[in-house]
């Protein structure tokens, strides 16, 4: 645990230094695209309160000065598969973004969706002895949380305190300054495969960049796609990406669960490619132009040229009706959504007061998904786009950029994590001495 503390603290330090210098890069490493945004932090004074612009969750402190997106290479299921290829793709994105910004960036905050994220709920409890809660007590209660055996070769990515309770009052967001006898904390911990992180680190290092933070794509897309009251009341964000579909559940502005289904838009493309016997590029094109999941009578008559380059006239002049295409796509999308439903049920999402589900990510743009998804996921489903940040190019405002935008917010205003609190000093001897003195006072 200490080593994790050290590396995460080092990353926090680096992030702080980068923001001090005013320039930080955001790298969203996805299965189908890698996007890089360069943020310029102008300081908190760029807007005065008299301008009518509030802090807006920290978005007003930065603006995007460089943005680039490139087709991803060497990434499968949100994990780095072929390191040289992935490195080239990262270089392409970073170089283009740097060129647009006209600045050189050294620090980068990255997010990825792979690595089989797994959520754990941790609970810790300490005896306060009628004293006031200070920073030290908070870190002690976090340290007192019993860490489950999350297995060899896994690494903690997020560990956020989500709830504090003093005596019988629960749901405290900040217990400091309060007095009680018993302090309890609930924590959400997300672990991912250590090898995935290691590969990512190495890849970024080979691009001469320094990692200033690491986040799960499920978490950051929830940050940007859910509006504030959804985060507060409870909602699930489903980021339908290229290779993975990640889901995160938020309540009281904290993520309490994250998971990942290793299926995404590229599987739909693969199905089309197999079903129609066309190359992947053509399948992708057909999917984007004519794709859908709900067939109507009109779709039987709409014929799509699927083409080919074999030289066989019959083969190259094939057409397929849109209904057929929908017939190929729909089972796969249903499968993905059903798998998501299973994960949500496993997480106990139905017990949440609010059943809001927000679909985002590139694959959520399939026409007709808003009629298909409620049938599987429940009535309160909407398609979400990331919230707008200053300077973001129009091309990067689509649903596919939810995690990039969320990462910007994460960079500007990260939530407190376990390692942001100071390391608890082992206060036992002092405490027992105090108790002994107290016992003497009471008995003599």
């Amino acid at each position, binding site marked *: 645990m200490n080593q994790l503390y050290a590396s995460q603290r080092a990353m926090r330090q680096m992030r702080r230094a980068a923001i001090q210098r005013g320039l930080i890069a955001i790298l969203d490493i996805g299965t189908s695209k890698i996007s890089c945004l360069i943020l310029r932090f102008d300081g908190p004074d760029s807007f005065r309160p008299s301008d009518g612009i509030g802090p807006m969750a920290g978005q007003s402190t930065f603006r995007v000065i460089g943005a680039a997106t490139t087709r991803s290479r060497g990434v499968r299921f949100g994990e780095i598969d072929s390191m040289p290829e992935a490195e080239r793709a990262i270089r392409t994105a970073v170089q283009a973004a*740097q060129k647009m910004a006209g600045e*050189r960036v050294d620090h980068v905050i990255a997010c990825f969706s792979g690595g089989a994220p797994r959520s754990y709920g941790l609970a810790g409890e300490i005896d306060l002895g009628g004293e006031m809660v200070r920073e030290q007590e908070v870190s002690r209660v976090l340290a007192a949380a019993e860490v489950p055996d999350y297995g060899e070769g896994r690494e903690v990515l997020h560990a956020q305190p989500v709830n504090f309770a003093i005596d019988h009052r629960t749901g405290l967001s900040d217990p400091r300054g309060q007095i009680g006898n018993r302090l309890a904390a609930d924590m959400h911990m997300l672990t991912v495969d250590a090898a995935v992180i290691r590969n990512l680190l190495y890849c970024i290092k080979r691009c001469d960049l320094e990692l200033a933070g690491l986040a799960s794509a499920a978490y950051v897309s929830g940050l940007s796609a859910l509006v504030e009251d959804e985060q507060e009341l409870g909602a699930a964000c489903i980021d339908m990406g290229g290779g993975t579909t990640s889901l995160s559940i938020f309540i009281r502005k904290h993520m309490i669960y994250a998971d990942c289904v290793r299926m995404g838009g590229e599987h739909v493309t693969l199905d089309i490619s197999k079903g129609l016997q066309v190359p992947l590029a053509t399948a992708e094109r057909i999917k984007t132009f004519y794709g859908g999941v709900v067939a109507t009578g009109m779709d039987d008559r709409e014929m799509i040229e699927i083409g080919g380059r074999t030289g066989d006239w019959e083969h190259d002049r094939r057409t397929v009706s849109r209904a057929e295409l929908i017939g190929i796509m729909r089972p796969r999308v249903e499968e993905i959504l059903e798998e998501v439903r299973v994960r949500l049920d496993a997480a106990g999402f139905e017990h949440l007061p609010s059943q809001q589900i927000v679909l985002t990510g590139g694959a959520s743009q399939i026409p007709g998904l808003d009629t298909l998804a409620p049938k599987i996921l429940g009535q309160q489903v909407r398609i979400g786009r990331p919230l707008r940040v200053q300077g973001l190019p129009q091309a990067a405002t689509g649903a596919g950029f939810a995690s990039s935008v969320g990462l910007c917010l994460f960079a500007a205003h990260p939530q407190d994590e376990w390692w942001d609190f100071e390391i608890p000093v082992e206060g036992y001897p002092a405490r027992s001495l105090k108790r002994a003195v107290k016992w003497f006072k009471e008995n003599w």
Partner: protein
Amino acid sequence: MQPLTSSAPRRDPAPSRIAYRLQRLWLTPLFRLLVRAGLPMVLVAGAASWYLAQPENREALMAQVAELRRSIEARPEFMVRLMVIEGASDSVADDIREILPVDFPVSSFDLDLQAMRERIEELDAVARADLRIRSGGVLEIRIVERQPAAVWRVHGDLELLDAEGRRVAVLESRLERPDLPLLVGVGAERAVPEALALLEAAAPVRERIRGLVRVGERRWDLVLDRDQRIMLPERDPVQALLQVMALNEAQELLARDITVVDMRIPARPTLRLSETAIEELRTLRRVKTENRP
């Protein structure tokens, strides 16, 4: 499996590692400044120093510069063709023309007006000279001449002095300037203002004054006609002279047969009578004693 040692000529959209690093280097502000400002400066300085390191190049450059300068100086608008002397008498003007050996036309860049002015002011007769080059290529010299205030005779020569004791000119004969008072004696030229003040004080006897004699380069004797002489003290001679004038006013002192009024000690004026006057005095005294009973 893909061939790991790829020899495929397929164009890769990704930048090579070198290109990526170079672009990042180029985006580094300090490096950018160095290349954009530092490198050209170093190149230009290097080229210039290499060129100037060869003596023939240097000489050629100097010659070119000199030629350019020459051609600008020789332009007609900078040429001076004429000298005009104002405020000087003819003899002084001739002197000035003599000591200024300027061959007109000459470029105004070649005229050292300061040095010319100093040379002109070295002339005795010139109190002040103003030189300027007027438009139209005229060198204008405006002269203020010294005004002679006294004639000074020393070592048998006659010279004219101005009120400050500066020599103005040599005089051939005293008769040329009979209007000016005569000063005699070595060192008289250094005390001309005092002498003029004395002459002013001696205004009541102006017709009788023959001159002032400097004695021992320290004090004045006022010489009147009939070889009368007023010996003035070294300090405060004007006061002493006024004293004598007062005596003269009251008792017509100077009209009497006196050869010397010695005021060298102002508290004790002493008179010297002529021989005949002494005789007369003695006679008178004898008569007085004889008449006494």
